């Protein structure tokens, strides 16, 4: 056997350790690479205002990606996030039409998100049904309700000051959205990596039965995660509605897939049990920089989706391939 391995083409010795490096290392590497390539490819890339504008395109998605990462670590998934955004945006639109105040509109938007998450979580945990089926259903349900309520109409009577959430700047080039995203990242980092709540996510994701027998209230925990995802989808709805200044039932259409792509790209195992918030954080930037850079080069959005799709598969496949090859050598 040993003779055969000697004759074979061998990877350099150092390669064998590659699969022991954390996922985040690769992500940072790729991100830096893309960043460098982009700044050479287009003279407009390194402009702070351009970069700041670029963040608007992914921050709203990213805010939902963070709690969704925790949900996926718990072996659940929520495909209805984009529909929740639509429904809560519609609710806010109607609230604005009735002349409610700014605070009330925001509260209504977030509470609709919470209610949707509660419904998802209740059906999933109470009836013990796989989350993917339930949320495929509620994805149509929530968006369907927005269609029923709004039809082909537009709601755009938002009060003054509402536009701040999506368009305002905290300081210099740092937008309110971006600040909120950083805050959310810190919050979810602490929640997932520094608290009991977070440890339980990993426990449930690795083995729900064992987690149950070790005294974790698995159902309540999953329910809470669904509610958190719903709440953050509500927050994203506030930001998006405020940025666009109008609500249609097609708002955020197809976002669920790009948000899940962000999470998976961030190294969260779609089968549950592993993944980190920093990984998702970097993946968000990676996707943002790639789309922004390609946009500057006049690449149409649909071609970007090829690149994002290819990135998703190759980023997942590369470590698997490396492990396969290095196993063959040893």
């Amino acid at each position, binding site marked *: 056997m040993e003779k055969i391995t000697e004759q074979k083409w061998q990877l350099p010795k150092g390669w064998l350790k590659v699969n022991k490096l954390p996922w985040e290392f690769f992500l940072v590497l790729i991100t830096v690479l893309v960043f460098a390539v982009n700044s050479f490819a287009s003279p407009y890339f390194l402009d702070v205002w351009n970069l700041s504008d670029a963040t608007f395109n992914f921050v709203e998605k990213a805010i939902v990606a963070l709690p969704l990462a925790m949900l996926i670590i718990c072996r659940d998934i929520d495909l209805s996030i984009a529909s929740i955004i639509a429904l809560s945006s519609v609710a806010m639109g109607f609230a604005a039409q009735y002349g409610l105040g700014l605070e009330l509109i925001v509260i209504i938007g977030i509470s609709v998100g919470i209610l949707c998450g509660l419904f998802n979580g209740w059906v999933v945990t109470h009836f013990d049904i796989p989350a*993917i089926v339930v949320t*495929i*259903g509620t*994805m*149509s349900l929530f968006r*369907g309700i927005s*269609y029923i309520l709004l039809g082909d109409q537009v709601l755009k009577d938002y009060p003054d000051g509402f536009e701040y959430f999506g368009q305002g700047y905290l300081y210099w080039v740092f937008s309110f959205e971006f600040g909120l995203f950083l805050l959310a990242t810190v919050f979810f980092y602490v929640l997932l990596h520094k608290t009991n709540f977070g440890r339980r996510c990993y426990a449930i994701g690795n083995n*729900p039965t064992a987690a149950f027998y070790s005294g974790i209230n698995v159902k309540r925990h999953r329910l809470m995660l669904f509610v958190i995802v719903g709440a953050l989808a509500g927050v994203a709805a506030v930001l998006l509605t405020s940025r666009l200044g109008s609500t249609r039932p097609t708002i955020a259409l197809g976002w669920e*897939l790009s948000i899940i792509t962000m999470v998976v790209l961030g190294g969260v195992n779609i089968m549950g049990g592993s993944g980190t918030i920093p990984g998702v954080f970097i993946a968000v930037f990676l996707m943002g920089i790639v789309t922004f850079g390609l946009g500057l080069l006049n690449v149409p959005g649909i071609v970007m989706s090829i690149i994002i799709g290819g990135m998703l598969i190759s980023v997942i*496949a590369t470590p698997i391939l490396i492990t396969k090859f290095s196993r063959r050598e040893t």
Partner: protein
Amino acid sequence: MKILFTSREALLCMLILAMLLSVGAVAKDFLNLSNLLSVYNDTSILIILALGQMLVIITRCIDLSVAANLALTGMAVAMLNGSYPDFPVPLLMLFGMLLGLSMGMINGLLVWKLQIPAIVVTLGTMSIYRGIVFLLSEGAWVNAHEMSETFMHIPRSLHLGVALLSWLSIMVIVIFYYFCRSSRSGREIYASGNSPTAAFYTGIDVGRNQFIAFSISGLLAGLCGYLWVSRYAVAYVDVAAGFELQVISACVIGGISIMGGRGTVVGCVLGAMFIGVINNALPVIGVSPFWQMAISGSVIVLAVIASSKAEKKSGRIILKSAAIVPSR
């Protein structure tokens, strides 16, 4: 008698009949044979795709790329027809099926050889295939006047008073019925979804069966690519965008368990027909089409709740320790 209330198929059948009758009570013409045939014809593509999806779901995977696959083959076939109108259409159909098959095989290979979760693979290939449609067509549409007569005529042509499109779907149903119940590979697909570990120990290659399921799903999506484009006489980048979710919904309503290993051809077809009847009935009874999405959404949620209760009731617990089933 009991089977009437417990089996998903019987329930769905009664539900569809009840829907047809109540719509017929409002609009008498709805129950005409010709109208019913056109409703079925309208649902044919959904039925074919749902059957392919069923196999994939039975092996514990999911294929989100069917609609993009359909769009790509549809565009390729339409463009070929536009440039070479004399190219025989049956060969064109075969080409579409092969193209769809190869796309399904790419999905299947990634799942089989690299063991990437199917949802990740097809999420990626979904946007890749859809993007290639754009690259291929450069965003342009292929309209009816650019397609040849026979290209558009074939699915519409009547045989025994029924359109060929309907005949094709009936053919697929019959083949699937045989394949799933009586063929060795069909049973292996069920086995590898029902319990991959047990299937492995009986010598079944689970990954290979997943690959086969994906290939069949791709093949059927390729066939539907031609059917769709020729039926609606137009091909563009966003053809059938979001249709994959309707396909999965049809499977879920039809009682295909998303955990794999469980589901019947009849249920799947009924699930697709349920959606088809709703889509066709709503405009007839004067309900705004905006209701359609919410209705099918609530039906999915209710259907999975109903089946979760039915599954729990069936079978008594004889051995307490056997009742603890490891989840997923």
